């Protein structure tokens, strides 16, 4: 019996005799030799249909409970497994059609790695699809590794790129990609309308729609003033929250501090806050949630997260987070074309679309209140965004900080080394 079963296992993968003709019942009884009936009673060795039929027959036998060595043989019902097999073939064909549709759609689509929050990005990209007829596949970052995960993935895939366009929700990771030779240059109309601070001189990347690093304060717990924050920072940080500095905009924030405080200064500051009980949580949205719920009194987050809490009528206020030099930190989105893309024209269309005034105004009008970086019609901006724009004008220039980001990452990786 064991030998028979071994044979049937092997037979499931052995090509059948070419164009062998046989009767329905005989074939069913020859299941141990791997015989399967084709649509017209013919057997075609190794064809996908044969494999599907063999799969279906095996599954039907399995579901019917026949072929097991503890079941007495039931020769009267040889037609039944094959009839059930027909149902399973139908399911198999549906699944095959599904795979075909998915793979075709994916092959033709523009692949966009998107670190920006899907809540906002998806709407913008779907509208691009509607306007241009170019379908887009969005690959988001994992929840835990906002933006850094995709940057590292692009570096890993450098020699065999799967991505066409990268929409990063911050800048320094994109600068790193440019330095690693992952990006292709494009100086389109969108690039041309940007201020120099927010574009790479040769068109390797372009910035748009910025966010500010801010303090978020629960006003039921403490007044939202710089004096109070400084006092709390000096005395009690046990009810303060910050996102993990290895990821997202907190990494950019740390890169600025690395540049301004020096390596030792930042490391001491970081260690001091942790030792005194500051809560380090996975992301800026979590910081917002903790402060909004009153679990923490204040924390560092981004403007888009702050406005989500504000719109929920939670008692929170914000203050721009200033660096030791007194500047603010405005972190733009960035977009770039990946070197080696096979869909260069479609990629250019998407870059132009994202850098257009319409998209910047749309992002500014969204719940995230992103700050337009290129000139736009100011009358179309809300009061909130106009205020943010004045603070963004005082921002640190992030473009020279790619090396600082690398050093910060190296330090943080060593802190948590295996």
């Amino acid at each position, binding site marked *: 019996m064991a030998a028979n079963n071994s044979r049937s296992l092997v037979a499931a993968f052995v090509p059948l005799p070419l164009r062998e003709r046989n009767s329905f019942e005989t074939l069913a009884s020859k299941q141990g030799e791997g015989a399967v009936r084709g649509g017209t009673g013919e057997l075609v060795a190794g064809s996908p249909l044969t494999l599907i039929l063999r799969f279906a027959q095996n599954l039907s036998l*399995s579901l019917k409970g026949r072929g097991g060595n503890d079941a007495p043989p039931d020769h009267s019902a040889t037609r039944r497994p094959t009839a059930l097999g027909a149902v399973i073939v139908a399911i198999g064909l549906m699944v095959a059609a599904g795979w075909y549709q998915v793979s075709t759609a994916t092959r033709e689509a523009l692949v966009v790695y998107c670190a920006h929050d899907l809540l906002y990005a998806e709407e913008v990209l779907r509208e691009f699809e509607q306007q241009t007829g170019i379908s887009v*596949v969005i690959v988001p970052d*994992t929840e*835990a590794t906002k933006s850094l995960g995709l940057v590292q993935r692009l570096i890993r895939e450098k020699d065999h790129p799967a991505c066409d366009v990268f929409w990063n929700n911050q800048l320094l990771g994109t600068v790193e990609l440019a330095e690693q030779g992952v990006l292709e240059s494009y100086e389109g109309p969108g690039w041309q309308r940007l201020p120099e601070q927010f574009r790479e001189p040769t068109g390797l990347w372009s910035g748009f729609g910025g966010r500010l690093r801010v303090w978020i304060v629960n006003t039921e717990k403490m007044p939202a003033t710089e004096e109070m924050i400084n006092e709390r920072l000096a005395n009690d940080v046990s*009810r303060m929250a910050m996102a993990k500095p290895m990821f997202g905009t907190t990494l950019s924030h740390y890169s600025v501090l690395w540049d301004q405080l020096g390596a030792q200064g930042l490391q001491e500051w970081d260690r001091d806050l942790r030792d005194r009980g500051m809560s380090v949580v996975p992301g800026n949205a979590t910081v917002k949630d903790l402060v909004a719920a009153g679990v923490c009194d204040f924390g560092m987050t981004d403007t888009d997260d702050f406005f989500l809490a504000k719109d929920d009528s939670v008692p929170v206020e914000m203050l721009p987070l200033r660096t030791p030099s007194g500047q603010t930190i405005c972190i733009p989105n960035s977009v770039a074309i990946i070197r080696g893309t096979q869909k260069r024209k479609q990629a250019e269309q998407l870059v132009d679309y994202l850098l257009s005034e319409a998209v910047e105004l749309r992002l500014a009008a969204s719940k995230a209140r992103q700050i337009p970086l290129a000139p736009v019609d100011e009358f179309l901006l809300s009061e909130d965004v106009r205020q943010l724009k004045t603070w963004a004008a005082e921002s640190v220039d992030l473009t020279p900080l790619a090396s600082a980001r690398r050093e910060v990452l190296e330090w943080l990786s060593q802190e948590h080394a295996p």
Partner: protein
Amino acid sequence: MTFSEACTLSVLRSLAIALTGLCIAIPLTTSLRVHTGRQAMWRWGLALLPVFVPGLLIGYGYRNFALSLVHHPVWNEVLYTVLVMLQVVPVGALVLFCSPAPPVRAAALHVQRLVSRSNNGRGRLVGAWLRHHLFAWLPAWVVMFLLAFQESEVATLMQVDGWTEWLFTRYAAGLTIATALRVLVAPVLLQLAVLIAALWVVTDDGARGNATSGPPSFPSNGHSWLATGYVGLVLLLLVGVPGAVVLRGTWEGFSVLRAHRTLLGEVGIALLFAVTAGGLTWIVSGQLTRIRGRPGSLLIGCSVLPGLMGALALGLGLASLVQKPPLVSLRDSPLPLLIAEVCFLLPRAVLIRLLIGRWRESSAVHTARLLAVAEDRRRQRESAELLWRLDAAGRCGGLLLVCFWAYIELTLPSLLAPPGMTPAPVVLYNLMHYGQISGLSAMLFASMATPVVLVGIAWWGFRLIIRHLHSF
């Protein structure tokens, strides 16, 4: 936290979970063993409920509460440990149920106890007692330990430290595949050591009993109360709380579903992976369990080993293979993910097959088949119903369960899904940093209700077809 610290924490936590879980699984199995027929089905159904609740749902349900414990990490750790323990207990109970009989029977132990009183052979009594219980309990303990050690979905969402969370996050953040694999050696070796030790104890030929099940024992009141308490806790903590959170959000955020039509496509992709990987796993497990004797055991052992090492180890291993030529061309195809899911689900499918074999009464099935030959149409219909209940229902249920597990799997698609083929659970997981918002709850409800409804329809369809085939 370094990897060594995270790994140590995971080991200690898993030891505690497996030990506590065993203390619950033993009385649970004892109280379930005495029931038969429909009553047994309901009781097993309730006890096995955690097996059907996705980790994503549990993690989402407790995410905000876990956040509120940010200043009390110990309580968060305790809550997480309890939740995982509740999740793994039914699997332990199942393993206990289908474990072979211990080499030293209870009666023999009793005789030894009587003899040792007079001969002062307490040492031998302790040895016999240990041998008896190690043999009976070790497989269940090992399975629960491995499941707790490999758990990552709830841990990530509740922000609890552990080796899986550490490695997954660092890999996504840029740890090279070579370093990730090097780091992976320690947990894989640990799991292998635990498995080999258990196999060594259980497969000791001199110690193996001839019977296929443990001696019948009758539940005391305490056993029944413990089993009832466990089921109550499961209903409250694993089903009630996450269910309430999701349903409340769904009620408020149902309109979001209309705006996010892409969810339909993502659910479709998840279903494609589930049906393909589930079907393949079921076929492979069927072929494996048919091979009897030592070669069969060896083949089963080798086939289920990759899956027993956990989704993270399996996913990273396959990811390393498809990142460089010559296999890099497969990277953007669904093949690596399908292979990984089949390997991952194979141990579960084999366990289900073994359970079906354990429950199946061959003589009853044969009698029912003989009844089908009768001329009387009524008898044929009765035979069809009997054959469905005695034979086909278990197989169909097993297949559908494996497909459901493939649908809700999160770690493997996070590592291996090609662009454009991200299943719905992974998309939702990536949105969960927003916390418990109504729109997300509605999306989670829709994506989790879909497979449940489809499983129900498929079950009904299989039943209809198989009964029809047997009755004409």
